């Protein structure tokens, strides 16, 4: 990149995108259904992800009912319990969070935040959504197939994943793998768009170091996802062949139900390597967009520029790179060379450094800020607290000697729900409350929002804090019924019942949220173009909701970064990114 000295800038006209380049819908179908407009695709992605997320929420209710009150609900048997945990995990991680952050937030925010009219490949972008929808439908169809969905656990470890004894051994696992393959193909199409739009679609003056951190987070996460998902693709294809054609990629010689199978010599560990080569970056694929969103929410709602912007960018890139060399910390109990264990424990703990930088910077952004406890801000604060909580238990589990006794206990469940369940969901909610006015032109209802926040936040802690304790007691995960054991006292069962009640309440609070989304669409307070007084580009569109093509006749020109809040001497407490410096005319010409 070259800086052109300011005095030669005079006379550079704003870069205009000719209208011929923009795709124009001609009918209702191409405008709202088979739309190539990133904003419509974003809404489609979000609605689909939330709908399938509701399925996963109901599954978690059923699991909690069983765990809290074992034996009471005769319709939940051991097989179904396994199916519930599998589908809950897979849906939440892949079909909800990944799709919502990248397909939903990414599609909506990237073009608006970098000042583009749309994604660079709109047609491919549309295909991405429809393939994602197909993947979701294939996934849902497993509920109605003979044998039901797979119960292999979301990690789908062979050999058990494809053998009899695991529920859903027929259609369940086959369609699950097919659905993942479809998801990856669809995601790759979308991901190419997000990356190339950030690289090529930025408007004049939007240098990389002027992009809002949300775009940095989504961009880096997309790059990681593009490189990590192929590992899941390879693992899924090979497992599918093992299941359907009895190849032996992963399957060792074994006897199933007294019958010697044709399999021989395969390596289940190979699957684990492939799975976690995807699986660990996946954690950060979910976390990095959340980091970015939280940075923006905190800066806007504390009316203060983000502290340490450069460090924030470097930390995002650093975390993205490091997350590719830690995957085997999920496999400490699979057995490995002690030197590898040492290596992976070290890299895992090193990730704490850039992550801690981010937390410090968020806190320092808040420090002496003009903190408005709006609903997005509440969710942002909840995110920071929850992420720190989950991150600290991550330091426990990153150490081999601590991980081995805690592995496969509820401690692990509590850890990853804090760090990549609750925390990213807080960012999702914060983001939705923050950007809903831009998407719809109306504010979400404040009272319902506060109710939703407090019940979700406190409720989530009521569920997952005690879970750490259960894990330390040694209560295993993935057990349908713990039964009588020497190490689990009766009080732990009471705790389980308490957590289940909390889970039911938190679930109902999400129904309130969904109601709020629909109700406010029609009855919400008119928002205006920039209700939060935010400086970044998406709030400066000529129309709200932004029209097709986002900007009017001319693309905006960017003169500054996205965090000019409370600038001394400025007329307002924020300066929009497209506001020329004092003394400049609006067309970018030097006076």
């Amino acid at each position: 990149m070259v800086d052109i000295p300011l005095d030669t800038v005079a006379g550079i006209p704003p870069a205009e995108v000719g209208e011929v380049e923009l795709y124009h819908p001609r009918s209702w179908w191409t405008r709202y259904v088979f739309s190539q407009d990133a904003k419509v695709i974003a809404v489609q992605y979000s609605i689909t992800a939330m709908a399938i997320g509701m399925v996963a929420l109901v599954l978690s209710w059923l699991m909690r009912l069983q765990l809290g009150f074992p034996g009471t609900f005769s319709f939940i048997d051991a097989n179904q319990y396994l199916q519930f945990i599998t589908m809950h995990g897979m849906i939440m991680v892949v079909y909800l969070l990944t799709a919502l952050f990248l397909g939903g937030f990414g599609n909506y925010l990237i073009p608006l935040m970098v000042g583009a009219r749309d994604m660079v490949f709109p047609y491919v972008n549309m295909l991405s959504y429809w393939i994602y929808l197909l993947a979701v439908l294939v996934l849902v169809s497993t509920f109605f197939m003979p044998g039901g969905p797979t119960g292999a656990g979301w990690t789908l470890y062979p050999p058990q994943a494809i053998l009899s004894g695991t529920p859903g051994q027929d259609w369940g696992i086959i369609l699950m793998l097919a659905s993942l393959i479809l998801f990856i193909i669809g995601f790759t199409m979308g991901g190419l768009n997000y990356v190339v739009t950030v690289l090529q679609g930025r408007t004049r003056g939007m240098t990389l170091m002027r992009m809002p951190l949300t775009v940095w987070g989504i961009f880096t996460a997309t790059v990681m996802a593009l490189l990590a998902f192929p590992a899941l693709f390879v693992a899924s294809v090979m497992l599918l062949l093992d299941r359907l054609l009895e190849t032996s990629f992963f399957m060792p010689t074994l006897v199933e139900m007294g019958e010697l199978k044709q399999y021989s010599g395969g390596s289940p560990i190979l699957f684990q390597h492939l799975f976690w080569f995807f699986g660990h970056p996946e954690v950060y694929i979910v976390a990095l967009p959340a980091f970015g969103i939280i940075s923006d929410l905190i800066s806007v709602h504390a009316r203060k520029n983000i502290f340490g912007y450069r460090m924030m960018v470097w930390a995002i890139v650093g975390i993205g790179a490091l997350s590719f060399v830690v995957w085997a910390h999920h496999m400490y109990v699979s057995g490995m060379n002690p030197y590898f264990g040492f290596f992976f424990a070290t890299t895992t703990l090193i990730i704490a450094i850039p992550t801690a930088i981010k937390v410090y910077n968020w806190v320092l952004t808040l420090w002496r800020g003009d903190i408005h406890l709006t609903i997005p801000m509440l969710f942002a604060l909840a995110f920071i607290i929850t992420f720190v909580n989950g991150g600290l238990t991550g330091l426990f589990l990153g150490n081999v000697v601590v991980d081995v006794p805690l592995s496969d206990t509820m401690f692990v469940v509590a850890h990853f729900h804090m760090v990549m369940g609750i925390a990213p969901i807080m960012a999702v909610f914060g983001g939705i409350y923050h950007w809903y006015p831009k998407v719809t032109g109306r504010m979400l209802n404040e009272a319902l929002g506060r109710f939703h926040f407090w019940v979700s936040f406190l409720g989530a802690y009521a569920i997952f804090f005690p879970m750490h304790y259960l894990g330390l007691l040694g209560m295993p995960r993935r057990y349908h019924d713990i039964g009588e054991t020497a190490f689990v006292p009766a009080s732990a069962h009471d705790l389980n019942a308490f957590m289940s009640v909390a889970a039911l309440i938190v679930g109902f609070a999400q129904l309130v949220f969904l109601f709020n989304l629909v109700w406010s669409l029609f009855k919400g307070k008119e928002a205006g173009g920039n209700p939060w007084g935010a400086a970044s580009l998406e709030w400066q569109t000529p129309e709200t909701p932004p029209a097709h093509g986002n900007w009017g006749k001319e693309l905006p020109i960017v003169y500054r970064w996205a965090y000019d809040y409370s600038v001394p001497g400025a007329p307002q407490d924020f300066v929009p990114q497209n506001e020329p410096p004092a003394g400049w005319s609006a067309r970018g010409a030097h006076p």
Partner: protein
Amino acid sequence: MVGAGGPPVSAIILFMAGLAAIAGWWLSQQRLTAKPWLEQGVMVDLREAGTASPPAAKIGLGVFLAVVGSLFALFISAYSMRMTMADWRALPMPRLLWFNTAVLVLSSVALQWTYMAARRDDIGGVIFGLCAGGASAITFLIGQLLAWRQLSAAGYFLASNPANSFFYLITAVHGLHLMGGLVALGRTTAKVWLGAPVAQVRLSVELCAIYWHFLLLVWLVLLGLLTGWTDNVVEICSQLLS
């Protein structure tokens, strides 16, 4: 080798390290040390200089090739981990593969020639080159299918040994990628056929040529792996890492 529990690193780690180097080089050009809070005004980056900035479709293809590359690197990693296990029985390579390789090289050359014709605005050359490149690519695919048939006729079925499974799987994935390329090539050919001027398809032709060269490179690596030429390399890499 990766022994009891070592990660199957070699190929994918090397590939990722290469990508990281490219990403690091690119980032180093992006003034990541800028202090945006101090800088106001219009900053123009190279993208706007026009000539220096490649079109979005070319960048998109580059990113896609990185994804495809990582896919094949992962297959190669899995292959090199699985092949060290006791039950691996290498299968004889059909001689036909050499013919196929030659055809694929020819296809790549034809598309490069087409690209040069497109730069000369030689419409006849473009049509000829596209057809020659497409026909030789299809010949390659048919050749691959024949190689499969020869193998299965000789009793080397998909599931009878992991070496066979990998052979069929990897050649199939490579073939599918080539078929995807043929769709793009077909669309470009159709455009020229329907009378589009060369200027309109120059970029498409260039992208097809790049994709073909990439798939040729991947195929040469895979061929080295499948015929066992690279066994020594794999072994050396594994020893370095274990």
